[in-house]
């Protein structure tokens, strides 16, 4: 293999790893949009809070990584259900704008609450993965990256099975498809919504813990959610496979642009590229790659 090709493959591989992170973040957004049509602006806060909780469980209370992750996931699920019950259920049937605004209010509230509870310092997550990287056919990948990829893949498989075969999953798909019909079929949409928020927050927790492994844990972690927006749109707002593919595509494109164009042109093309790609894709496909095209009747 030539060094040029190796360089390309290396960029590609790390792009996939980053893409998995984007996909994890996007997944939570898409779950909620699919079921309830709400863009949850507080998603970034949940990511950050989960990362913080996991950090504190490990650093302060000396839990092992696995127990800390489990506790964090349980807390996140509880937060999701509580959020739905306390904040969103009163808004059932209200205009969608008001509901989205509620999530903006929630994000302001949660961010400050996190500042009060966890402080404003930068924390470094005690990563449980070995530091030694792994070499696969000349490509270097860290253990963290591999674990992020593995957990994303696992999550996707679990989701696939859950939505395809479980009763609750079926109920969720039904509700997402048509709320009224679902109600008529005897599905408790209230319970479905609570469940959806719970699951979405769990994916946020997993994303948060994965991010904590590669980044510095601080309040600024909330803004990573914005970097996943292109991934959500690229895949189409209502498509779970779309979120995964969107995340991976954006991750790879970003890294390739960073590895080649940033050198040549300079000036941080890397950060703008996802947004330009997003804009161009929307010009061609107004509902993203896998989005549900709405057929309207007057």
């Amino acid at each position: 293999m030539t060094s040029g090709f190796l360089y390309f493959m290396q960029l590609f591989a790390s792009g996939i790893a980053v893409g998995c992170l984007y996909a994890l973040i996007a997944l939570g957004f898409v779950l909620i949009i699919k079921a309830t049509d709400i863009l949850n602006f507080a998603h970034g806060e949940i990511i950050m809070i989960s990362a913080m909780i996991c950090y504190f469980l490990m650093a302060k209370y000396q839990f092992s990584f696995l127990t800390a992750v489990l506790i964090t996931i349980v807390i996140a699920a509880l937060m999701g259900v509580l959020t739905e019950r306390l904040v969103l259920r009163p808004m059932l049937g209200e205009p969608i704008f008001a509901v989205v605004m509620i999530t903006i209010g929630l994000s302001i509230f949660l961010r400050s609450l996190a500042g009060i509870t966890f402080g404003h310092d930068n924390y470094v997550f005690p990563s449980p993965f070995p530091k030694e990287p792994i070499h696969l056919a000349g490509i270097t990948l860290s253990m963290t990256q591999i674990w992020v990829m593995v957990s994303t893949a696992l999550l996707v498989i679990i989701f696939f099975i859950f939505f395809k075969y479980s009763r609750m999953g079926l109920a969720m798909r039904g509700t997402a498809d048509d709320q009224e019909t679902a109600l008529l079929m005897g599905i408790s949409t209230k319970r479905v919504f609570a469940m959806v928020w719970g699951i979405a927050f769990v994916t946020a927790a997993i994303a948060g813990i994965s991010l904590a492994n590669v980044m510095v844990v601080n309040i600024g972690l909330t803004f990573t959610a914005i970097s996943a927006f292109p991934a959500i749109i690229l895949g189409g707002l209502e498509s779970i496979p779309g979120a995964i593919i969107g995340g991976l595509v954006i991750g790879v494109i970003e890294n390739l642009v960073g590895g080649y164009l940033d050198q040549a042109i300079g000036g941080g093309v890397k950060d703008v590229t996802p947004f330009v790609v997003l804009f161009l894709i929307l010009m061609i496909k107004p509902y993203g790659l896998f989005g549900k095209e709405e057929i309207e009747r007057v």
Partner: protein
Amino acid sequence: MVIRSKTFRESYYEDIKLFQTVWIRVWIFLFLILLATLPLWGNPYVIYLINLSCIAVVAALGLNLLIGYTGQISLAHAAFIAIGAYTTAILSSKVGLPFWACLFASGGVAAAIGFGLGIPCLRLKGLYLAMATMSFGVVLENVLITWDKLTGGVRGINVAKISLFGYPLDSDSKIYYFLLVITVLVILGIKNLVRTRVGRAFIAIRDRDIAAEVMGVNITAYKVMAFTISSFVAGIAGGMYGYTMGYIHPEHFTLLLSIQYLAMIIVGGLGTILGSIFGAVFIILVPELIKGIARFSELLIPALKGKYNEEWNIAAFGLLIMIFLIFEAGGLHGIWGRIKTSFKNWPYTY
């Protein structure tokens, strides 16, 4: 014989009258007098906050025209404000144009770019449109940083002092009158716009775009027009911002600012003029008000001293937004409507 109730209207014109009753005229007149005398009794801090509110009101009106009236979600509002602010900064400090020329140019440049953005966004709806406009904002921020020959890049750029026919507006209270006049003009302009054919077309597009088209509303033209007018107003707000701050920087106009304007119009009430005003004033003044209350309670209860965390202010602000919206999804305008009705129908309130 006709027995007329207070809200009885006989013609469509009466329904769209600028001032519905004489009392509204009186109240508005009194309110304007109060505002006009503000520099006599307010201190610089209060005046400065009102100045910021004026800018926010203008910007929020522009956004409400696009989102509240036409139903086109945009997260690029901060970008258009930035365009306006930079146009004013460059024309006033590098070219030396007078303020009215700068403001018109700010609006014009922003409108031209808004027109340009509106055309490719025609096919997009809802969140997809929001994201497309958001990416425009991100790209523009980068352009402002990179094109440093023109914009000063990360060093920021100074805005020349404003002067009115040779008379410099160099203090907060002088700028205040300037901002107040523009704000009133913009409010009147938009209020008039939405009761014309154009405004009705916007509302028709918001409510059901296909139905509107069937009825003969040219969607393409009106959507692009909404983008253009909204950007024009945003450009003017940007010019006002530039003159008030005296120094602008790309980081003043981030996505978070766009979200803040979105918050203003939703908290205030979508698709209402009064709502934009309420919302803008709410978002600007309430955090300061909470701060003041917090300071005050710290003085009252000495046990709080030193233990208090500023984050509580912001948390309270977020909570307040949520409570208001859960209480009334129509925002502050809806709450205002409720209060008014209960007064009007007193004692038969229910």
